[in-house]
Structures are given as C-alpha cells and as structure tokens.
C-alpha cells in the first residue's frame, strides 16, 4: 500500500536517516482487472451568480435591464459582465463571463482494491470532484461509472439531530449513509465500542462534547461496508489518538480489498495510506500514477503558485534598480531541510558603496524567523546578479513570506515585506517521541553526538 520510496527527512550534513520500515500490503483478493470507478471526460461548470440573484424580483430586474440593453444593476461589485475583475481567481483561463469551469475533462480509472489519493491545492477542484463522485451534484458534461455501493464521508455527523440520543442518531446517521436497519443493529455494539461511548449512548447528542460527537460520527461511518469508500479530509478533526484510529481503520478497509478514495492535504497520510494518486490543478488532471511522483508534482506545483519571483520592485534610490528577485527553482527542493536559494538581479546605473542586502523570512503569523544579510563594500555599475544560498535552513514546514531590505551607506533603498512567498512541505519525520504534528517539530536537527563509556 505504501510506496517503498517513502520520504524521510534529510538530515544535516551527509548522514542519511535510517529508512522507514516499509509496510507490505497483503495480497488483494479481489484484484484482477476489475474497475471500480471510471470517469469519462467529466466537466463541471458553475455559474458565478450573475443569473440568479436570490430573489424573483431581482432576477426580473436584471432580465429587464438586459432587455433594454442597460447594465445589470445586480452584478456584484467585483464582477463585470465579461468576467471577474479582481484577480482573486488565479487561473489563466477561468472561463468567460459568468461561468467558471471547476473541473475540466477529468478522465481516469480506479481499480477495485485501490487506495487512491486525490491531492491538489485549494481551489483545484477536489471538493467538486468529490461532490460529483458522491452524487451530491451532477457533472455538466461527461459521465461517471461505478461498480458497487458507494459511501462517502464528506462531513462527520451528517444528519445528526441534537435532540435525539446517541443511539437514535447512530441509526439515523447510518440510514442516511446508506445502511439498513439490520446492518446497523448488527454492528451497533462494534460502533459504540469504536467510539468508546458505551456510557453516554442514551443521552441526547446535544450534550456531547465535540470530541465525543466526532468519535460517534466517525464510528458510524467507519462501519459502513461499501465497495467504494470516499473520504474527504474529514479526518482532520479530533485529537491525535483519534486521527491514528481513523487512519488505521481506513488502512484496514483498504486491506479488505475495498476501494478507497481519499482526499487530503496531509502528504504524510497520503503516502502512508494510498497506493496511487491523482493530482488536480485548476480543475485539470495534472498527474495520475504512483504516490511519490504525485507528491513530488504537488510540491513543484506549490512552488509555481507561490510567489517565487518579483519583477522590478520599486527602489528609493535613483540608479539602483532591481530587475528581478526570485527563488532559484532549479536549485530548490522546497522540502523540509533542503537548501533555499534566492537570487537578486540588479541593474545599477553607477557604482554603489557600502551596500547591505538582507532577506528576512517571516512565518505565517508574520513573525520573523530567519534573517540573513550580507554587506558588500562596493557594487560596480552594470548588471549584477547575486545568488544567496541557505544550505541548512531548518525551517519547519509551513507558509513563509520573504522580505527584502537593501541599504546603501545606511540609507534605505528598499524594504518590502512579502516580496516573495513560499511553502515548505513536510515529509515524514522519523521522530518518534517529539515529533508527530508538523507544527510541533520546529527546526529539525540531527545533532552531532559523541558516544563514550563512563
């Protein structure tokens, strides 16, 4: 199930970390050439709110305005009849006018027994794809075929009614998810045991803590026995122990030979659980194949989406021009504990002396975590490029923005926050005791050590 090139953190210096134990997936009984899911050229289009303004009166008003050739009075502020004005939607061809293609020509097959990961940036179309797979909404074009019963878990606790007891909600939620009464009754004890809620099962759910609520909801969903299980990143709720339980359960489901589709941003979970993955980018299929390739592709896309270059930022000093500031992508492996390279391309109309150039890296909360600076006695006139490399930055995974500051003889030439931005991706850290959640790791080191007897 897990690809054997599982990712391991690259440590300082030349020492390689010990490799992860590879999990061998048992033989899949129902393997063979059976397909569980097939998508054929699926497209999904959304209308961006121009047609429907929520009330009959407004729609009539817009229709009348169009008839008279006037501007639609009910358009949102950031729209014009030809399409969104703001650049919020960063896709190159978002579609013209009031239509937006969330999915474009998606085709793929999933075999029975695959544990299949769906990854992509926010806005890539993952949720839309899941909604279509779950029959919540229909495709605009194309078709989907399934073999077997589908159960999808897009949200935990769908349909829970606060006034009903835990017991009654198990039956209700199970029925909503597609089980019938007998199935639920047979599995009732298992479900309660999985949720660890034996004592509380007869109190109304509105009295449960959020943790209990989630445990019960997931327990019901975990005991569905569909041929195809679709799971959204719903597993992000709950404490660590519970998440482990959920992942374990999903692994078990996969081992039984059922097909699982799993959407997540957690690359570690994807690599642990899935044996194939699909990468969506701006509604299109960007990668389909083995997991490590997909994850690598995801990370390189991440780079492109980060603001990795700034062209011609304004400077305060006449003659000191910055043509370009950017990350060196070729030299970059945006992973954890891999080197970072920045380049500055300067266009100087004369020589400058006592130049100080510094980059500051701020974390997602805006706090400065790294500053590096270099002083140059003089820079000659002409086009100069300077490449800075931070070999071992030890920055933990997360989103960062890069600030640039340049001074000449003490006078500020430029200071710009958030000139560039980047995301550093986690990889599986082989840290048993102190690791775990990625934002708890901090800067990661494999320190030098001296071993001796005493």
């Amino acid at each position: 199930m897990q690809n054997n090139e599982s990712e391991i953190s690259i440590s300082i210096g030349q020492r390689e970390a010990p490799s992860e134990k590879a999990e061998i997936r048992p033989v899949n009984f129902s393997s063979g050439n059976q397909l569980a899911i097939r998508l054929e050229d699926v497209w999904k289009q959304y209308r961006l709110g121009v047609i429907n303004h929520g009330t009959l009166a407004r729609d009539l008003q817009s229709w009348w305005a169009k008839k008279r050739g006037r501007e639609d009075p009910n358009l949102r502020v950031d729209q014009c009849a030809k399409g969104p004005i703001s650049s919020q939607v960063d896709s190159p061809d978002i579609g013209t006018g009031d239509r937006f293609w969330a999915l474009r020509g998606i085709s793929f097959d999933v075999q029975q027994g695959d544990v299949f990961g769906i990854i992509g940036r926010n806005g890539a179309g993952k949720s839309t794809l899941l909604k279509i797979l779950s029959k919540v909404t229909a495709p605009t074009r194309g078709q989907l075929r399934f073999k077997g019963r589908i159960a999808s878990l897009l949200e935990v606790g769908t349909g829970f009614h606060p006034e009903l007891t835990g017991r009654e909600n198990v039956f209700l939620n199970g029925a909503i998810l597609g089980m019938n009464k007998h199935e639920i009754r047979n599995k009732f004890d298992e479900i309660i045991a999985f949720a660890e809620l034996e004592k509380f099962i007869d109190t109304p759910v509105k009295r449960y803590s959020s943790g209990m609520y989630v445990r019960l909801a997931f327990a019901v969903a975990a005991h569905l026995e569909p041929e195809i299980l679709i799971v959204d990143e719903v597993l992000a709720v709950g404490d660590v122990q519970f998440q482990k339980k959920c992942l374990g359960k999903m692994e078990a489901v996969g081992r039984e030979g059922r097909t699982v589709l799993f959407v997540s941003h957690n690359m570690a979970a994807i690599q642990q659980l899935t044996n194939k993955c699909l990468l969506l980018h701006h509604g299109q299929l960007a990668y389909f194949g083995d997991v490590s390739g997909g994850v690598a592709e995801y990370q390189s896309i991440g780079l492109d989406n980060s603001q990795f270059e700034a062209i011609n930022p304004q400077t305060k000093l006449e003659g000191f021009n910055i043509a370009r500031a950017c990350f060196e992508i070729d030299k970059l492996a945006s992973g954890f504990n891999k080197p970072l390279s920045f380049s500055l391309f300067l266009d100087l109309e004369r020589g400058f002396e006592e130049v100080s150039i510094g980059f500051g890296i701020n974390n997602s909360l805006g706090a400065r975590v790294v500053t590096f600076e270099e002083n140059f006695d003089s820079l000659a006139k002409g086009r100069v490029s300077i490449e800075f490399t931070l070999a071992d930055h030890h920055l933990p995974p997360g989103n960062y923005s890069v600030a640039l500051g340049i001074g000449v003889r003490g006078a500020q030439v430029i200071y710009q926050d958030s000139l560039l931005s980047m995301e550093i991706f986690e990889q599986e850290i082989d840290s048993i005791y102190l690791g775990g959640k990625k934002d708890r790791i901090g800067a990661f080191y494999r320190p030098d050590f001296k071993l001796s007897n005493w």
Partner: protein
Amino acid sequence: MDNFQTGKTDSRSIDGEQMPEDWTTTLRPVSGWFDLKLRELWRYRDLIMMFVRRDFVSIYKQTILGPLWYLIQPIMTTLVFTVIFGKIARIPTDGLPIVLFYLSGVVSWRYFADCLQKTSNTFVGNAHVFGKVYFPRLTVPIAVTISSLIAFGIQLLLFACFWFYYHSTGADIHLQGAVVLLPLLVLQMAALGLGCGIIISSLTTRYRDLAQLVSFGVQLWMFATPVVYPSSIIPENWQWLLVLNPMAPTIEVFRYMFFGVGTVNPGNLLISFAQTAIILFVGVILFSRIEKNFMDTV
C-alpha cells in the same frame, strides 16, 4: 509552466484491462423528465421511517405535554373558530353542531396544510444534509406525508370521540357508507400537498422569497375552501369558483361521510382528483429536473 495538461503522465490506467460488463451506477449530466427511481426509494425505506421517527420524536422531547400537543392544537383552533365564526359571526353550519363542524374542518385541513408546508421546505431546510451525502431526495417529502399521517390519525381519534359524544346526545348525524372512501380522500390530500410542496420547494432553491408566501398562502387557501363555512352558503352563481379549488370537494365529502349533511357533487370530486394528479405530475417532473443540480444554487 504549462505542464498541467494531461500529457505529464497517463491519465488513464487502463493498460489493457478488461472492463467489467456491469456497472452498478452511471452518472450523467441530465436526468430524464420522469426519473423517479422508485426502486432506490424502496431500498431507503428504513431511512424514510427514521425520518418519520425523528420528526415525531424531536417535536415533543423535553416538553411537558409531549404528544398531547397533537390534540391540543386542533382543540384550541376549533375553540377559536367556534367563538369567532360560530358565535360572533354566526356563520351557518348546515344544521350541524358547531363544534363538530369546525373540528371536522380543522382536522382534515390540517393534514393537507402540514403536508404542503413541511414539504415546501425540503430543499432549503435540508440543504446542509443534501450537500454532504447522497440519499434519494424524495425520502424527505415522503417522510413528511407519513409523519403528518400519523398526526392525522391521532386527531381523527379525537374527532371520533367528539362524534360519538354528539351522536349519543342525539345530534342528527349519521355515518355514511361513503366513509370507505376516506383512504382515497387522504391519498388525494397527501398527493396534493406533496405536489404543491414539491413545486414550491423546487422554486425556492432559486427564489427564496417564495418561502415567505407559503404560510400566508396556505391561510388564504383555507379561507377559500369551505373549512369554516359550508359551501351551501355560497351564492349560486359563485358556486362554480369552488371547482377551481381541488380541496373544496374533499372537505365537503369528508363532512358528508361522517354527518350525512353537505353539498356533494361527485363530478366535482372527480375534477378535483384530476387537478391533483396534474399538480403531482408537474411537481414530480420539476423535482427530477432539479434534484441533480440544486446544490449548486440553493
């Protein structure tokens, strides 16, 4: 930068595999005009009963009076009607005891009104569940008609009690043979309520303001129906208007069944059945067109 076309790696994993002959489900953009999926509804019958149970139970949990509310409401309404329409306005009641007259109207009308009002909130009121998981959308309206039926049954018992009381104290009321038609009437009210409710529900996914009109509309409809007055007091040359109202013959026949008194025209009843069938038909068509994509606009 543009390596996101499907050229990067194979987007299909077929690799010479056989395709299974039988796919369980196929999803396509457009559904048929009359796509009811009855078999699927049958598969989800447990869910329908769970909804009925949920609707029933959640109403009176943590209340003092609990299920008594099903009786209190018609009694209070009848009392109000008796005082206002019976005593103050002195509207004639075809010679029937006033309380019984209004109670019969209240009980029968209540079933229809409940079906309509609760169904008309299907899509909007359940959007959060519909948006997260698939189950046949028709289960909700069907569960509504069933739970309303149970309430109707309880109220019918109440009505029977009153009937026996008045009968035993010598009122001139006689059970008619036509009472066997009661299930048919109930079916018609359910169908009409369901049909109208589905139509309104489908429209409110786009136009929320229609939802405001529903309770108001139902009230008006009640006054346009011989619920608080007998149809005999309507002037001759206005009687034809009643034909436009599919509920009018229903209420009159209901009263006739139990009391032997009232203006009953079998022709009008058949017309009302036909009107109901048409409305239900339109509702079902609208529903099957909308249900696939309403989550995009609701």
